């Protein structure tokens, strides 16, 4: 790869690779800085209509009647649709297909869509909404986990484990009681993590075009075109082969665009009805009603430790406020109990998880998907334990890391594990040893660690096909086109495909064309979620490129009269390793290849290794590799106002191998920023009891606070490379993991600064001030939950741990049956 592709002279380096490991520009950067990138709302098709949704103003009600006649008669209105026209339900998980494109009989939160207008322009569509008369019969709304727990009737949904509990799970690995007995001390703490929104700056938008040939094309800002494709085929009863979903570049996703959405199905239906293209773009307020953000999560954590901080047993209970629909909720519930075992050794572990329905916008996956909440609880509790035992919090963690290449108690396979190096790096860089606990009053340092999966090991709907596929087209022009179903949401997935193909085939990055996220043109990839894209599409791309290289090796070697293995593919040429001048351009090599084999094209695919766990719920947590992060946060707390200013953050991230260090740093800094926003200020808050309703407190970007340049702090990022054999060139994830340690490290820093514990997120100034006041009155300086509701967790399934000789199966699942049939396979992911 000639330096012409890189803007900076590359120092002579011991790097064995020419493209991988370089701080190259993104392949889509030029379009993004010149305004050329076509986002969904930038698409304007001839005779295009505009759609607006009428949304419920009542949190929980039966729909008695909908009268659209006046709206239909309004100028510019072409048609109005209601739920009756789209009766087939859908949902991202096979086990919770509980959504309708438009509500059919009931509304379950303020914002639930009940009717859709298609008009010649947005204004006409907006005006028509007011002319639609809906008669509601209000039902008692449910606004919190506690309320849902004690209100089995009326049920928000007619499915789910019992009452308004959507999901109830309980599993035990090894003997937790024995573990607690063996402990020198047992600690029990309560934590709460409030929900928050992705707040991607691009509002959801979609354009549907139902052609006269009976085929549908949907352009949509989605992270998962493959799943939208399946949902459209189901709800519209149209063969999937006649539906084309094109994922337009996402103006930010963060998990908020990874469900199939009502508005996508509605515009497809309206386009069929009107025979004209139909566009919808949600307002910011509507994005808050779409939500699918972080689940508010209440947690009770009981941990037994030896005096040196070694964990002997852990019992982790979670209760998630799921909102009005299932979304990814079953998977989110399992995730709140999955990754506690991959950072520190936990020999005996029990997890009880519950998700309730409430009359609020549905929660789903947001960056970290169900793991930032438990990680916050675990890392704050470990800080409390270290302080109580008189141990240094960093040293205590460092001594009891989960070993690399090992199987955890809940049968997650750890490969490379660079957490030790990460801790050492941030401890050194922050001056932790001689500054923590020794800074002046009001100034403090907090540390936390975390891990995240590099892609969910199992697909959302169980199947034996690869999770990712790549096709390559080689051309006599010397150019290569890479086709893959992945979606570029700003994380750089298009660029990673280009770098890896350029590395293997020796083609210049600028001679590669990337075509992604188009269900007609590209092989299936499941989508941009769970940090799976670099690893899974990367491995598929490498396989396709290696196959292409082998097709060229024979004819070129023959032409040059050289042994096959002396050929080097690099710098846009194919040449003799011992005499670089002797060679040809890549285009010439393709001509020889095409002459010998005919038209050239190769495919590559990737399926993660099988997971070790075979108990109910084992499908959530396995991954080909786990990334690790350690962060130190330094804060300055103003005791009068409780305002906490972040002075600096040091973060080390074990990324396995940087495909492009510059882009990895971008993901780390973006994750730190989002973690900071959640720790300091972001919250999806609601007012209940407003004349019997539950309304969103801040459905706008003014009230919903997020960090600006004034709140974001300086960050020193350390990239630790401990290559994992399952990753492309050893690469692991970077897009979500670095968010996880920030909220706990922030709260641990507040404790070091002013000696109060904020055991809930966000740790707002009001809470800090309240805790300081409590402390000044001699009471415990703590703000956080003080009770955990009674939850009918089922009797746990018992899974012997690897150390006990377990084979990954539960021993008594068949016997106790966990209290009767426990619904379908959770998350649709675990193997039957």
């Amino acid at each position, binding site marked *: 790869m000639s330096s012409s592709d890189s*803007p*900076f002279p*590359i*120092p*002579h*380096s*011991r790097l064995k690779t020419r493209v991988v*490991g370089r*701080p190259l*520009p*993104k392949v*889509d*950067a*030029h379009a*993004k*800085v*010149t*305004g*050329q*990138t*076509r986002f969904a*709302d*930038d698409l304007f098709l001839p005779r295009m209509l505009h759609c607006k949704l009428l949304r419920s103003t009542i949190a929980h009600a039966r729909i008695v009647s909908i009268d659209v006649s006046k709206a239909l008669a309004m100028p510019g209105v072409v048609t109005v649709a209601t739920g009756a026209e789209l009766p087939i339900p859908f949902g991202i998980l096979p086990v919770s297909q509980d959504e309708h494109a438009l509500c059919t009989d009931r509304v379950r939160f303020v914002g639930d869509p009940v009717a859709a207008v298609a008009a010649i322009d947005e204004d006409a569509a907006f005006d028509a909404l007011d002319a639609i008369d809906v008669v509601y019969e209000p039902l008692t709304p449910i606004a919190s986990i506690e309320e849902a727990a004690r209100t089995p009737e009326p049920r928000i949904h007619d499915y789910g484990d019992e009452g308004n509990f959507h999901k109830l799970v309980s599993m035990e690995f090894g003997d937790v009681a024995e573990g607690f007995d063996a402990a020198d001390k047992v600690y029990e703490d309560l934590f709460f993590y409030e929900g928050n929104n*992705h707040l991607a*700056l*691009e*509002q959801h938008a979609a354009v549907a075009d139902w052609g006269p040939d009976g085929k549908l094309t949907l352009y949509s800002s989605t992270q998962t075109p493959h799943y939208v494709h399946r949902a459209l085929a189901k709800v519209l009863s149209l063969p999937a082969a006649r539906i084309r979903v094109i994922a337009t570049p*996402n*103006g*930010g996703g963060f998990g908020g665009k990874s469900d199939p959405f009502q508005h996508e199905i509605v515009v497809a239906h309206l386009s069929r009805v009107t025979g004209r293209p139909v566009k919808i773009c949600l307002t*910011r307020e509507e994005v808050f009603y779409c939500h699918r953000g972080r689940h508010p999560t209440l947690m009770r954590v009981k941990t037994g430790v030896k005096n040196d901080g070694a964990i002997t047993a852990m019992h982790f209970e979670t209760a998630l406020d799921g909102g009005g629909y299932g979304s990814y909720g079953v998977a989110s519930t399992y995730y709140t109990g999955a990754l506690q075992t991959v950072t520190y050794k936990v020999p005996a572990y029990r997890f009880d998880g519950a998700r309730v329905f409430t009359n609020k916008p549905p929660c789903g996956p947001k960056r970290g998907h169900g793991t930032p909440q438990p990680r916050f609880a675990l890392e704050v509790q470990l800080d409390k334990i270290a302080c109580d035992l008189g141990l240094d919090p960093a040293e205590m963690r460092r001594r009891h890391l989960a070993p690399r290449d090992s199987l955890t108690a809940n049968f997650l396979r750890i490969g490379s594990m*660079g957490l030790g190096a990460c801790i050492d*790096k941030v401890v050194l*860089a922050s001056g932790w040893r001689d500054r923590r606990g020794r800074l002046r009053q009001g100034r403090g340092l907090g540390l936390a660690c975390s891990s995240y999966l590099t892609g969910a090991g199992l697909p959302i709907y169980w199947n034996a096909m690869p999770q990712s596929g790549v096709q390559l087209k080689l051309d006599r022009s010397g150019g290569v086109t890479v086709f893959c179903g992945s979606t570029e*949401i*700003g994380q750089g997935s298009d660029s990673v495909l280009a770098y890896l193909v350029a590395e293997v085939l020796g083609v210049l990055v600028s001679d590669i064309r990337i075509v992604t996220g188009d269900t007609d043109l590209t092989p299936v990839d499941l989508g941009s979620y769970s940090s799976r894209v670099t690893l899974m599409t990367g491995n598929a791309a490498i396989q396709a490129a290696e196959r292409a290289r082998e097709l060229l090796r024979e004819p070129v070697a023959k032409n040059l009269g050289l042994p096959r293995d002396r050929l080097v593919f690099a710098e846009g040429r194919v040449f003799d390793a011992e005499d670089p001048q002797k060679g040809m351009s890549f285009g010439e090599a393709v001509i020889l290849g095409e002459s010998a084999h005919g038209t050239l094209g190769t495919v590559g695919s990737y399926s993660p290794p099988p997971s070790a766990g075979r108990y109910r719920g084992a499908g959530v947590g396995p991954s080909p590799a786990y990334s690790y992060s350690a962060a130190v946060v330094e804060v300055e707390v103003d005791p009068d106002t409780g305002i906490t200013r972040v002075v600096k953050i040091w973060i080390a991230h074990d990324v396995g191998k940087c495909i492009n*260090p*510059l882009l*990895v*740093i*971008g993901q780390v800094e*973006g994750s*730190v*920023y989002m973690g900071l926003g959640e720790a300091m200020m972001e919250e999806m808050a609601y007012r209940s009891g407003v004349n019997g309703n539950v309304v969103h407190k801040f459905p*706008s*970007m*003014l009230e919903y606070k*997020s960090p*600006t*340049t*004034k709140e974001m702090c*300086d960050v*020193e*990022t*350390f*990239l*630790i*490379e*401990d*290559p994992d054999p399952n990753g492309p060139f050893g690469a692991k994830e970077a897009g979500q993991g670095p968010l996880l340690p920030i909220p706990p490290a922030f709260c641990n820093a507040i404790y070091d600064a002013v000696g109060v514990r904020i055991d809930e997120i966000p740790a707002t100034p009001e809470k800090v001030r309240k805790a300081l006041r409590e402390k000044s009155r001699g009471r415990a300086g703590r703000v956080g939950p003080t009770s955990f509701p009674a939850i009918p967790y089922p009797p746990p399934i018992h899974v012997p741990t690897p150390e006990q000789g377990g084979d990954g199966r539960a021993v008594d699942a068949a016997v106790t049956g966990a209290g009767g049939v426990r619904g379908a396979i959770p998350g649709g992911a675990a193997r039957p």
Partner: protein
Amino acid sequence: GEPLLAAFAPHKTLLEVLREDLSLPGTKHGCELGECGTCAVLIDGEPVLSCLVLGLECEGRHVETVEGMAGKDGLHPLQKAFVDLGAAQCGYCTPGFLLTARALLEENPRPTRAQIQEALAGNLCRCTGYLKIYEAVELAAAWMRGEQAEPSKQTLYGFDFDESGLLPVHRS
């Protein structure tokens, strides 16, 4: 710039006129209420939220959008620096940041980090955490002052690298 003629309903905002009547969709919207900075454009050199300005108010005035930043001989230095440092991840907020930063540099060719933060405080970004954006503005400012400037090694490789730019491999 080029003089443009457009006929539109009087209540339309400049944002809507640019995107719907002048085929300039480079200017983006994020909140409809003048809160996110994504729709920032320059009117007579000043950064303005185009969602809060009526199209009618711009008659006879110089409106600059992201489509007008690159010149005949290529990208504006700010655009080049954003490309080189990955300061545009999803790119949705990028037009607003580029134009606001351009106004800053025209007024202050050597801004401090605090001055850059102050100038860009009205532009929200959810992908980058703002740091690469600061470094890109600083790099472009240096280029615009005629200096030979390159990003620091920390910007490209993080804070942990050996002299060859290779990151150390840690065996824990």
